[in-house]
């Protein structure tokens, strides 16, 4: 049975409605908490004033509370410190390894890839439990260094994957041409290879940073009071009491996510342009 024009238009309308609902499902949770974070009252449901768009029902109260709270400020400082140090480690080691993996000469490639990707595949609870015992024995639990190493390990797969993907599009003749003109390996890397794979490296770094910035399981197992990060602080807040202050932090994190997404998409455009 072929659909009549009317029937097919109806079917298309129904299909678009279904898609619309899925997008609502994807985005509604994020959209709902943004206005609630401006609630003047200590509730996280819409007050009648808010529904009437009464200016007095909205306030920056919770943003002020978070900004003025030393606990949240320290959590932000910890998240930034641990995230950036872990990112530097993961990006450096991950980029080198990706260059090795991209080479056809690499021995035991599949096995090596399995090991290097494993931090992304192993369920986090298992990783965190193992790290807790091991790092405790070394005196690294409840230290910033311990968390940096742990997060670096968790972030490396993202760097390896993105840089390997960029390298697969890389034209090896360029390196050979550079070598043919007398450039050493280091000069070839710095002047020819790096500029081309740079967007891949940067987006891998952003993934690694985002992974650390959002990680809470390892932090739950390993961090002491002095290493509490933003997700750890949110976890405590959600378990005990969701105040609109948590929603203010959440709104900030959504804005951060949009910025990250925009940057990664822009970089992806550069990779495509370079091909």
């Amino acid at each position, binding site marked *: 049975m072929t659909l009549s024009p009317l029937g097919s238009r109806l079917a298309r309308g129904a299909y678009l409605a279904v898609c619309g609902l899925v997008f609502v499902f994807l985005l509604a949770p994020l959209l709902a908490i943004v206005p609630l974070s401006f609630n003047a009252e200590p509730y996280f449901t*819409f007050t009648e004033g808010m529904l009437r768009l009464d200016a007095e029902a909205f306030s920056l109260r919770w943003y002020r509370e978070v900004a003025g709270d030393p606990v949240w400020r320290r959590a932000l400082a910890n998240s930034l410190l641990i995230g950036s140090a872990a990112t530097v480690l993961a990006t450096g080691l991950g980029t080198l390894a990706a260059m*090795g993996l991209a080479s056809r000469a690499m021995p035991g490639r599949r096995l090596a890839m399995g*090991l290097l990707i494993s931090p992304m595949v192993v*369920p986090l609870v298992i990783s965190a439990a193992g790290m807790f015992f091991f790092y405790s024995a070394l005196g690294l639990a409840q230290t910033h260094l311990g968390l940096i190493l742990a997060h670096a390990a968790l972030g490396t797969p993202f760097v390896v994957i993105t840089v390997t993907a960029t390298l697969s599009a890389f034209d090896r003749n360029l390196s050979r041409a550079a070598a043919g003109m007398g450039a050493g390996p280091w000069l070839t890397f710095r002047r020819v290879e790096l500029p081309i794979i740079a967007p891949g490296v940067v987006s891998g770094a952003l993934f690694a940073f985002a992974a650390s910035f959002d990680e809470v399981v390892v932090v739950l197992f390993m961090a002491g009071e002095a290493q509490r990060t933003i*997700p750890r602080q949110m*976890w405590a807040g959600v378990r005990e009491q969701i105040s609109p202050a948590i929603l203010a932090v959440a709104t900030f994190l959504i804005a951060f996510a949009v910025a990250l997404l925009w940057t990664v*998409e822009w970089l992806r455009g550069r990779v495509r342009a370079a091909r």
Partner: protein
Amino acid sequence: MSRARLRAAGLVAPLAVFVGVTFAVPVVLMLVRSVYDPTVADVMPETLARLEEWDGRGAPGEPVYAAAAAELMRAADERTLGQVASRINRVQSGLRSVLVRTPRLLRETPAGARREALLDIDPDWGDPATWHAIRTAGDALTARHYLHAVDLDRATDGTIGRRPEEERVYLRLFARTFGVGLTVTALCLLLGYPIAYLIAHASPGNARWLLALVLVPFWTSLLVRTTSWIVLLQTQGVVNDLLVALGLVADGGRLALVHNMTGTLVAMTHILLPFMVLPLYSVMRGIPSRQMAAAASLGATFAQAFRRVYWPQTVSGVGAGSLLVFILALGYYITPALVGGQSGQLISNFIAYHMQTSLNWGLAGALGGILLAAVAALYLVYDRAVGIENMRLG
């Protein structure tokens, strides 16, 4: 080895060592705990050696008592008694206080037969079950945590049987974890397929925007997304408010949508949906829209054209997305912990519980070992079918 091989291996080596030391070794050592715990064997070697000669029926002979008395007193001095007592107590509940009390009281008894002295302190010392418990806990290398993790138990005569009905937990929990994984995967496929199709066949300008709508939640913190669902789904939350305002639900009959299995399923589907949409989109983008039109012009209905022409070309994307979502879902911890209540807890939550609260690390290791084996098997399938380096991140 050729220079190229050396160079490649040299580039990979630093990260391999780093991941090995900071990640792989810790995970392996954690799994070792599930089969190896020398605590009791280290503290009571003599007692365990003497117990070798015991026939397992009735109380053992004086040499066993003498060895146990001496070793327990030394353990009390070295303050390792508590660790030993808690290991043995886990095999036979109620022995902790007996073991802890014994050395203290022994000091007040005159020298002589230790057997009578111990029996005076507590009649449990005459019970064969006590000695079986010490012997079991004294096995440094043991499979009992793995037996426990699948609701089995080894009786004193060595036969393996199921635990009593009221103690069976973990098989049910593994089944629940797999069930949740399958349900979430199916929901993601159901919701993800239509929008992936929409994005893949939209004009490039529209596609960029629609794809961004999928990626914003992907990049947003897991905790933020989980929090949002609590805010939306709780009794006084937005969804219930809406249902009441629309008159679909009475104010007194608000639905319990969170802190139960519903909460876990909804939040996990939301969080994992982008992992399904992205591989589907990648595959669909390569299918020309003209194909469907061509099939229609040849007289195929939409359903026929879809089933015979379009769907077969997307199967690889469906497989990749489904495997990925299923693998990730199996290990979920944070979301069930926050929105799952009691009925929505998964195996990871119990691993964390045994790590942090009950301190039964051997059992935590065994549960983790089984979960890890399942995930690793699925990963191998994924790597064979899709290739890990082809995974699309965001």
